[in-house]
């Protein structure tokens, strides 16, 4: 067979080995991710991720522009969850400059952030089913509900995906009249949808056999590999930044952090479902408790913003994991150094470890269960 005409790996390939490059154009690499895979039969014996096909120089551009101008670019990091990206950046800047955030703004951030988590986790269910080769029904149901959340976003912020909502010391605008009631009414229908999804998917024997026992990761490896978010918790680590850092108003809200025991793809899949249910609880409380008041700290000058010199690392629990921003300021209108700690990229650290010895079809499922977005992996 002349298939191993090109070798990505140094050294000569074995006679029976087949080397394929999955991606950057591949239906289930979630964008332009690429993996060089060496297989024996269909079993993966070596896997090397290749990044950079969506490296759009977010950090360099942010260092050229003003502090505020980086905000809309953060939308385009993890383009499914722009709400939390804005928030993380705002949190880092607020740490850097020591800014207080008004109460109502914190609530609005939590509402938008948790809705973002909800739609991300729902979309995840669809995407991973797509990776398993289902013909899109789950994805379509997920997008059906996602559209309704996007409608709420559009009414609140003006855009479906690129919210550009957070500001230093608050959020950009208050809710339009009746928005909170609309959100409450819509979210009341959400548990029924999650039930339907659960009935649709979780008992399915093919899905179980595709997910259970695949890509098992121990807690210790997961911590050392820097994994975060649902992937870390699926391995049984009790670590949620919302609880640990207690940022924003999370200490006031009652919610539980689920964690798995096995650490395989099925646990990662189930954690998304469980977390979505917890997010609903948070949203309910936040929508009920939200106080009146200003939505942005009036003392903060957004245009021509100049934080004091120094540096700060701010992080939040994004839907994909720990989203952090490391900012270095030299006291001017532009960031001296602007670095994103992308959960999607770092969650891929152990991809090879998880994939070795599995079948090629499992690679897609494992990758899907990590839930990456290329905008964030490559920035």
């Amino acid at each position, binding site marked *: 067979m002349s298939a191993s005409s090109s070798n990505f790996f140094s050294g000569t390939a074995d006679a029976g080995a087949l080397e394929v490059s999955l991606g950057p154009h591949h239906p289930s690499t979630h964008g332009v991710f690429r993996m060089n895979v060496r297989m024996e039969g269909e079993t993966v014996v070596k896997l090397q991720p290749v990044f950079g096909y969506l490296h759009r120089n977010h950090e360099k551009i942010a260092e050229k*522009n*003003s502090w*505020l*101008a*980086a*905000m*809309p*670019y953060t*939308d385009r990091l993890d383009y499914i969850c722009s709400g939390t990206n804005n928030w993380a950046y705002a949190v880092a800047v607020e740490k850097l400059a020591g800014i207080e955030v008004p109460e109502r703004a914190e609530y609005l951030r939590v509402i938008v952030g948790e809705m973002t988590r909800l739609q991300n986790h729902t979309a995840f269910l669809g995407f991973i089913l797509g990776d398993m080769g289902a013909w899109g*029904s789950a994805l379509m*149901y997920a997008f*059906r509900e996602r*559209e309704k959340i996007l*409608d709420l976003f*559009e*009414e*609140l*912020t*003006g*855009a479906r995906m*690129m919210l*550009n909502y957070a500001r230093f010391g608050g959020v*950009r*605008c208050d809710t*339009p*009249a009746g928005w909170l009631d609309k959100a409450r009414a819509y979210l009341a229908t959400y548990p029924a949808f999650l039930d*339907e999804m659960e*009935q*649709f*998917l*979780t*008992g*399915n*024997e*093919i*899905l*179980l056999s595709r997910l259970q026992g695949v890509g098992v990761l121990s807690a210790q490896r997961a911590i050392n590999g820097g994994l975060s978010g649902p992937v870390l918790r699926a391995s049984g680590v009790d670590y949620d930044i919302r609880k640990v850092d207690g940022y924003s108003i999370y200490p006031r809200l009652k919610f539980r952090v689920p964690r798995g025991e096995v650490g395989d793809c099925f646990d990662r899949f189930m954690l998304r479902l469980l977390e979505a249910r917890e997010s609903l609880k948070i949203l309910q409380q936040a929508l009920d408790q939200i106080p009146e008041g200003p939505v942005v700290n009036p003392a903060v000058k*957004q*245009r021509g913003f100049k934080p004091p010199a120094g540096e700060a690392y701010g992080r939040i629990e994004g839907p994909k994991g720990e989203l952090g921003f490391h900012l270095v300021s030299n006291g001017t209108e532009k960031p001296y150094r602007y670095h994103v700690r992308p959960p999607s990229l770092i969650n891929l650290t152990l991809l090879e470890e998880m994939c070795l010895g599995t079948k090629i079809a499992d690679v897609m499922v494992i990758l899907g269960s990590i839930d990456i977005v290329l905008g964030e992996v490559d920035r």
Partner: protein
Amino acid sequence: MNFPGSGIIKGMAVTALNIVGSYFDRAHAKRLITEQYPEERPKLAEASRSFPFLVFDGDDPEKGIRCVACKICEKECPPQCIYIVKDTDANGKPIMRPKVFDIDISVCMGCQICVESCPFESIRMDNIYEVSGYDRFAPLVLHKPQLLKSNAYYHGIRPTEAAATDARIEAARLRKEAAAKAAAAKVAAAKAAAAAKAAGEKAAETKPTQPE
């Protein structure tokens, strides 16, 4: 019930429910949510934004233009897609009006930062989205005539925000007027005082003052 195969049957039941549901769900409520686009248009939310435009008051775009070519938006625009040239009068003196105002919508990211930074309530977000074309270059650079849209249009697409803007402008105008009045009054008072003083001086003047 948990016999082998029951999960698949449950899943099949869900899809069957959706297939059947989509035929009995004409109200676009739960199952069938398709909006048939070219015929059915989405009802855009008031906040919905796409590209910026320039508001002018009254009927004449040139006369009513609010923009004073201060170039703040040009500076603040994150992807730098705005280009402004100040107009000049006959003598070549710059005046508070843009001669050129270009927005490259092939670059614009619709972030609304120009709107936030505009101190003159001039640049606002539009909600048009049907702008596709066969050519990249000329048609996607919007010039001033294409960008200028009336305040009535603004009121049409986002009534609440436009009303608030108008109220703010009106308040500013009133404030300005009041200030002007106060200033005028002050000036008048000063004049009067000066006149009185002058008159007093004149009256008191009996001998010519020394030039300095």
